[in-house]
Structure formats: C-alpha cells, structure tokens
C-alpha cells in the first residue's frame, strides 16, 4: 500500500514516513504542494492514500485538496492540522478531506486513522489478545484468566487492552493515560497507578505468574 506524505517540516515528515514504513506501508515524502499535486494526479500515479499537512509554503494544503478533487482524484486524504478549531476542520472536510489528525498527535492515533482510511484488515491487532492464561476479546470486550470471567470497568478494560496489545513492551504512564482518557487529559495524579492496582487485584491476585509489571519511573508492561 502506497502513501504520499506532503509535509514541509522535515522532522515531522520523516517521523511520519518512518513510522508508517515500520508499520509496513510504502511511503513517499514530498515537501511542497505543487510537487505533491503533480505526483498524486499525474500520469501513472499509484498512491492509495495521501497524508497532507494543511500549512504548506506557496500552495496551501486546502488548495492542494481543492485542486485534487477538481481533477477528479478520489484518493483518500488524511489531513494534518495545527488548528483544532471546529470550523477549520469542517472546512477541510468540506474540501474533500476524509479525516484529520490534530498536531501534536500520538503516532498511534495517526496509524489508527491511516488504517481505518485504508480499510486494511487489522492484521497487526488480532481480535483476541492472549498473554499466558489471560485472554482479552476485543470484539465482545470480554476478559478472562484461566477460563474464569473477569469483570472490568471501561477504563480498566482500556488500560489492559492497551498493555496487552503491546505486550512485552514497556508502556509509559503518559501513553497509557492518553490512550484510555481524552487525548489531553492530565489529572495531575497518577490515575494509571490506581487502575493498575485494581487490575492487579482482579488479574494477578493469588495467581502465578504475575502478568502486570511495574517499571519504576516509567510505566507498566504486561508479560509473563
């Protein structure tokens, strides 16, 4: 699957390119609107999707988008914007954008939206996550350990799902908070610690091996 990324800021562009590359996409990065438009609508254009920064030198992202749609190119477009005002987003969507991500974004969010737009089967995330005897069904949102059902509140479920999806990797508190709560919610308390304490009571208490591990000063990891 080929994605064209139009972003004038090298660092952000590189970040998006490498991230998508690691996720298994083929990515081309260009730095301005003219060039991007030529590549996306020229002869032999073979992109499946475009990631477009709205603020570009010379030709703005909105103009790129409008010209693209005027030429009848139906390529899905994901817009990157620093403006989180509703009317701005509405304007982008009216101009033919399919979705948007507000800067600064968590890469996870960008990836999720790219996946959704590409309608690619989520091979990376199987519907059922398993760690040792702990099973989490993302379809029915049911959790069990060694065959015994475990009742979780929505936040507990979200935190556990996130950790199991990235099992074996240390996930920082901030990343967990971001995933399970609103993007920018910062309660100033380590609310994640409270959820983990609850999860441990329900999942690890009187069981071996322990599955949820603390990484001091950083966050948590789920592994055997």
């Amino acid at each position, binding site marked *: 699957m080929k994605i064209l990324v139009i972003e004038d800021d090298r660092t952000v562009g590189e970040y998006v390119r490498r991230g998508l590359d690691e996720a298994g996409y083929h990515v081309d990065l260009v730095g301005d609107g003219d060039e991007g438009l030529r590549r996306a609508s020229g002869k032999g254009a073979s992109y499946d999707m475009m990631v477009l920064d709205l603020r570009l030198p010379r030709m703005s992202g909105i103009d790129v988008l409008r010209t693209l749609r005027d030429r009848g190119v139906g390529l899905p477009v994901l817009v990157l914007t620093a403006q989180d005002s509703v009317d701005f987003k509405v304007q982008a969507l009216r101009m033919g954008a399919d979705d948007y991500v507000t800067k600064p974004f968590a890469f996870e969010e960008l990836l999720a939206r790219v996946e959704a737009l590409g309608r690619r089967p989520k091979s990376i995330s199987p519907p059922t996550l398993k760690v040792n005897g702990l099973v989490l069904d993302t379809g029915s949102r049911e959790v069990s350990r060694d065959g015994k059902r475990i009742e979780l509140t929505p936040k507990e479920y979200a935190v556990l799902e996130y950790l199991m999806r990235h099992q074996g*990797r240390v996930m920082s508190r901030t990343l967990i908070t971001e995933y399970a709560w609103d993007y920018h919610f910062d309660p100033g308390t380590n609310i994640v610690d409270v959820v983990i304490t609850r999860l441990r009571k329900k999942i690890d208490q009187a069981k071996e091996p322990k599955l949820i591990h603390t990484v001091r000063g*950083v966050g948590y990891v789920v592994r055997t």
Partner: protein
Amino acid sequence: MESIRGRLTLWYATALILSIAIFAVVLYVARRSDTYQDLDRRIQSEADLTAGILAESYRARGTLVENDTAGRPQLTPDVAAVLEVVPDYLLVTARDGRLLFASPDARALTFGEFEQLNAITRPPPVAQSHTPGRFHVSPNGPTLHYIVRAVPDAGDQFGAILAGADTKSAELRLEQLLLTILIAFFVGVVPAILVGGWLAARALEPVDRMITEVREITDGRSLHRRLAVPMARDELGRLAETLNQMMTRLERSFAALRRFTADASHELKTPLTVVRAGVERAITRPGVPQETLAPLEETLHEVNRMTELLDSLLTLARADEGRADLHREPVDLRAIIEEAGETGELLAEHAGVGIDIRLPPQPLVVPVDRSRMRQLALNLIENAVKYTPRGGQVSVELAGDNGRAVFTVADTGIGIAPGDLPHVFDRFWRADSARTRTSERAGTGLGLAICKWIAEAHGGTIEVQSRPGRGTTFTVGLPRSETPSS
C-alpha cells in the same frame, strides 16, 4: 439619578424653582411693606383730618362738648355727624379720658373689645406727638394699625384722637398676591420642567442610539461595522468619530489576535509534534534501559502538559473573539457524566475521598459538544477531589428540571474564602489558601475559566457556592434546547 438626562432635568428644575422662588419672595415682601405703608398713611390722614375738623369747629363755635340726657359728655351732634362719615375706627376722648365720640365701626365692637381699644388712648398724648402702633383686639376682634394724636388747636377740650384701620383688607390683598404667585408658579414651572426634560432627552438621544450601535458592533461578530457619523461637527459627531477610530484599532488587534492564534497553533505545535515524535519513537523502541525510559516518560508528560496549556490558551483566545467553537449534537448527558464519574472514582480512590454519583433514570438528551462537555465534567470532578482532604466526600449529580439540565459537583473540601469567590473563574487564578496538596502538581490555572466558557458557550450558566472549611458546590445549568450561544 441613573441618566445624564435625569440629572440635567433635575439641575434645571432646581435652578428654575430657586430663581422663581427668590423673585416671588422679593415681590411679596415689597408688596407687603407697601400695603402696610398705605394703611398707615390712611389712618394718619384720617387722624389729621379729624383733628382739622375739630380745630375748625372750635374756631367757629368754641365749645364742642355738651352733656347728653344721661349727663355724659359727648361731641356736639352736628360735629359728630361730620365725623360719622370717616371710615374705620375713630375715637375722640376728653382731657380726663372720657370718651366723646366713637365711629360706627368702633361702636360695632363688643363692650370688652371696645374697652381694650379705649385703653390705648390713655394717658393722653402731649402736644404734637403721633404714636403709631399695632394692636390685636382679643380674643376674636380685628387686628388694627392705629395712630394716637393730640388735638392742640381746639382749646383744652380734647385728650386724644385714635384712628385705626383693620389690617384685614391689607392681608386679603397679600393673600391674593400669594395665591397668584403660587398659580403662576405651577402653571409656569411644571411645563418648563417637562420641556426641559424633553430637550435634554432630545439632545441626548443620539448618545442612546450610539450606545445601542456600539453594543451591537462590539459583540465580536460585527467589528467591521462603523457608527454613522452625523454631519454636524459637534461634540456628538466628534464622539462618533473617536469611537470609530477606537473600533478600527480594536478590529486590527482582534485580527492580529486571530492571526496570532493561527500562527501560534502552527509555530508552537509543529515543534511540539517534533519533540513528541522523537520521544515517542524512543520510548516505544524495544530494549531501551529503564534509566533512559524514565526521563523520556517525564519529557513526554511535559510535552502533553504544554500541549494542553496551549490548547486552553487558544480556546480562550478564540472565545474572547466571540467565536463559539462548538460542534453540538444531541447527547445523553448521563453517558458523559458516567464516564467522567468513573475517572472521578479512580481519582477519589487514590486521594482517599468518598464519591457518589447520581444520575436520573431517564435519558437526558441535550445538544452539546461532546468532548467539551466531557472536559467540563472531568475538570469539575477532578477539582472537587483535589481540594477535598482524605476522608471527605464528593457528590456528583445530574438532574433534569423543566427545560434545563443541571449538573452539580459538591465536595466537603477546604472551600474558598468569600473574597476569592468572584475570582475563581479568572484565568490563571489560584487562591493561596487553596493550594493543592504539596505532593501534587498544580493545574494550569485555566481549568475553571475553560469550564465557564464551555457552560456559557452552550447558553448555560455556571455558579459556585462555598464555605471555607465546609466545602464547595459547582452548579452547571444547561438549556435542553439549543439557544444561540453568546
């Protein structure tokens, strides 16, 4: 007085009434002294006339006194007949004080009254003297101005002449004058004040119009409009011009703010994205040692805090411009409060605070911006938990009453001093006494300012009640049908 119009009218009326009153008093006093002087001149000439007649008759006839049938002395009848036509009160007495003549008016008095009058003539005056005076015949008789004089040119038959006149006619004239002044006062002053008020209103009417216009223009959406400048270069014309210049500057600075908002979003958020991207890549790479992860996690957290602060500032900057940035759709508020409530439970558990959440049994569907409403609920609940000491209680309640949804967050926390209450919704405001527990980081100081904006942008209200040491209650009221946001 609330308005310049009222004050102008009041001053004008006071000045008018004062000057008319001074005029009336001067007029009255002058007329009064004139009237009494006339009266005194009249009795003087009556007395002199009487003395003249007596002297004339004495020269012609000699003796003018004879005894009547009862043996009392009296004036000769033909002289008495001449004096009979003199008006007012006239008494003529003999040397020994006995009464020789009384005019018809004097005779009409009762005996007691007459005696009081007669007493004035004793003792008889000497030689040329004129003794004027004022005398009230008690109890019900008239008040008199009188004059007592001697009769030197009629031998030694006569003691005194008393001529007196009732002041009643003079007083009546003064009363009439007073009445005329009063009538003229009301007939003149009342319409004058009305006309004055009308003139003030007419002069100030363009100001009123200007106020309405300026209000319409500065609500944030019509700053491009200007006041109509009157043709005349008078004070109002210059005021309109000055206001227009001010609005031009205001418009320019709002445009600058708008530009800044857009630029800041981009210029600050792009580097944040870069920092975040780097940190996120590093932190999620497998096999990074823990001592490297910990500072990365801290950095990531700070980047998020900065992003949140930036978002809040931009939100408030846009709110100042009057652009309500809401994406409203019908939402069951119970779902939002329930979700925020779960977070509240987690926070409360951590802080050792009890929490109870009461939701109505029926769906409470209100057109709101879902994420803003969640932010509002989370902010209020988080605040309540933060400022409630261990062992306290936080109550969250959602209820619908007619036409409104009411969301209440009450705590038994440290409360807010009465003097601080008006400031809790100010930006970056934090009461010293309301510091967070030392182990925790303070928020951005924008949370409640944002809450207020969210509530008001939805056409709702936010209120706070608090007693230091007893707790604080925040109440948010939202209209259940969409109203134009302000």
